[in-house]
């Protein structure tokens, strides 16, 4: 079974790459593959010119030190049986092997950096608000100064005002710590706000990718267009409701033949039903997978 198929992208240092798509399109799976939480059966994950696709956990320690993540559900990503202090300190103790006093000062430093009061260090994660919890998760992720941070819908579980605070904090941190981000989101406006480059995913495949400006200003793929227009028109409504209704809900595990989007595509032709379109370039580093542009 393939949940994700033919997804390929590169992230440059200091850049933010966003993967955009509706829920269930496999973008989280991509993230989890990069984090080696799921096994990769084909394809490669290369970090700093090192292929880490098939390395065992013991060979990955350096990688863990340099690649960290922030998850969608802030409370759920914190162990309810640990104090906030220990949660933030854990990667420090594990990777840096620094003395206790230094851990203490680093944790305090980090707490300040992510804008949390020191009083929360003794609390349990359950007593935090969603925004606070996400800040704790961010503090944990940046504690060992990684190079790459993977953000899995970092704001989708938060209320609107907190969302902005967190996004700003992330942008802030990127500058301060010279980080690179891979951002996964279903919310194109978040991507617009954050990303340097954008990849649009549909049912486990990238259908369009380019710099953020290009994708947002001149979208080529019908799905991207739909995505952007619905985001503009109906800020609050979910994306799914604006799409053409179909019988079977689309599934990344068992995608339709031909172009995956054809059942919902207003421009679909006979060819789209039979053959899968390749990802082709239209110049200017702009790639799209649609028979309209071949």
């Amino acid at each position, binding site marked *: 079974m393939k949940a994700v198929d033919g997804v390929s992208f590169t992230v440059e240092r200091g850049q933010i790459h966003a993967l955009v798509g509706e829920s269930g399109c496999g973008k989280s799976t991509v993230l989890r593959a990069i984090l080696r*939480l799921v096994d990769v059966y084909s394809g490669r994950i290369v970090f700093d010119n090192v292929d880490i696709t098939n390395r065992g956990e013991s060979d990955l320690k350096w990688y863990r030190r340099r690649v960290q993540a922030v998850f969608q559900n802030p409370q759920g990503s914190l162990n309810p049986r640990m104090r906030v202090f220990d949660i933030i300190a*854990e990667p420090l103790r594990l990777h840096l092997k620094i003395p206790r006093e230094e851990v203490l000062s680093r944790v305090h430093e980090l707490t300040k950096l992510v804008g949390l009061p020191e009083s929360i260090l003794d609390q349990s994660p359950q007593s935090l608000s969603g925004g606070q919890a996400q800040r704790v*998760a961010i503090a944990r992720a940046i504690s060992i100064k990684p190079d790459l941070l993977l953000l899995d819908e970092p704001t989708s579980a938060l209320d609107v005002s907190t969302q902005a605070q967190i996004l700003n904090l992330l942008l802030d941190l990127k500058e301060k710590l010279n980080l690179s981000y891979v951002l996964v989101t279903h919310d194109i406006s978040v991507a617009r706000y954050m990303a340097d480059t954008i990849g649009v995913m549909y049912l486990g495949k990238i259908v369009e990718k380019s710099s953020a400006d290009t994708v947002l200003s001149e979208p080529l793929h019908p799905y991207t267009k739909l995505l952007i227009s619905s985001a503009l028109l109906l800020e609050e409504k979910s994306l799914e409701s604006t799409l053409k209704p179909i019988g079977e809900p689309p599934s990344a595990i068992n995608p339709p033949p031909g172009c995956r989007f054809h059942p919902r595509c207003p421009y679909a032709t006979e060819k789209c039903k039979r053959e899968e379109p390749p990802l082709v370039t239209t110049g200017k580093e702009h790639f799209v997978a649609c028979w309209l542009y071949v």
Partner: protein
Amino acid sequence: MGLIPRDFFKFLVKRPLYTAGFIIVIAFTIIGSIAPYILTKPEDAWGVTYDLNKAFQPPSLEYPFGTDAYGRDMLNRVILGSRYSLIIAVCVVGLSLIIGVIVGLVAGYLAGFIGTILMRLTDMFLAYPPLLLAVAFASVLGRGVLTTIMALAISWWPWYARLMYVSVNSVKSAQYVEAAKVVGLSKFTIMAKYILPNSLIPVVTQSMLDMGSAILEASALSFLGVGVPPPIPEWGRLISEGWVYVSKAYWITFFPGLVLLVTVVGFNLLGDAVKEYMNPRLRSIVAKR
């Protein structure tokens, strides 16, 4: 009482039946713990003397539970018996909990080959009706408090292993476990610091409620003659000892059984109370009425 949330008591007070269960359990625990110090006739309880002239005295003010075939005061023997019931129940549940939790944890988290083997093993033990496996083991292990505990624990742990397995499976996909992997923690650390503390609650709760059954099964073993040896006044043994005299001295079997019944009812009532307290759906129904 830091372990028990305060509103549990509020919850209890409104339900006299559950309160009764709670009181029985507390009383049993206290009496069982201090039994040797509150005996009025310790030599009768421990069985170090006997007086045939006092044999088979029916219940009276002096002997509220009567006397047995050796002229020993049954009340004192029943009180001392609570100690053994308590010790056995605590050890059986504790021991099974340790084994069950380890097996369930390892099987649940490591999955794969080891996990399958462990769970199949658990299934094999579960294929025996409760008590029967304990009977089989007790019959070959020999009779004694320790062997009774071992025999019961052998038949008991698989239930906790199963429960722990289910619990671990629900915890292991939690996001904080993935987060821990991303941090780069070792499997063992994740198991010990993340999975174990978060999956323990249902198993531990269940085990506390199983004390009543443990007491009952220990007595059954003793009744069948494969439990604790004389002169220990374990309740099941007292009942079986009185069995042959039942037509002429009913009290030798009656009172230990009654006390056993009350204790088990107490534990079961408390169990129901905890279940109802922890099941918000049931509680909301109650609240609506």
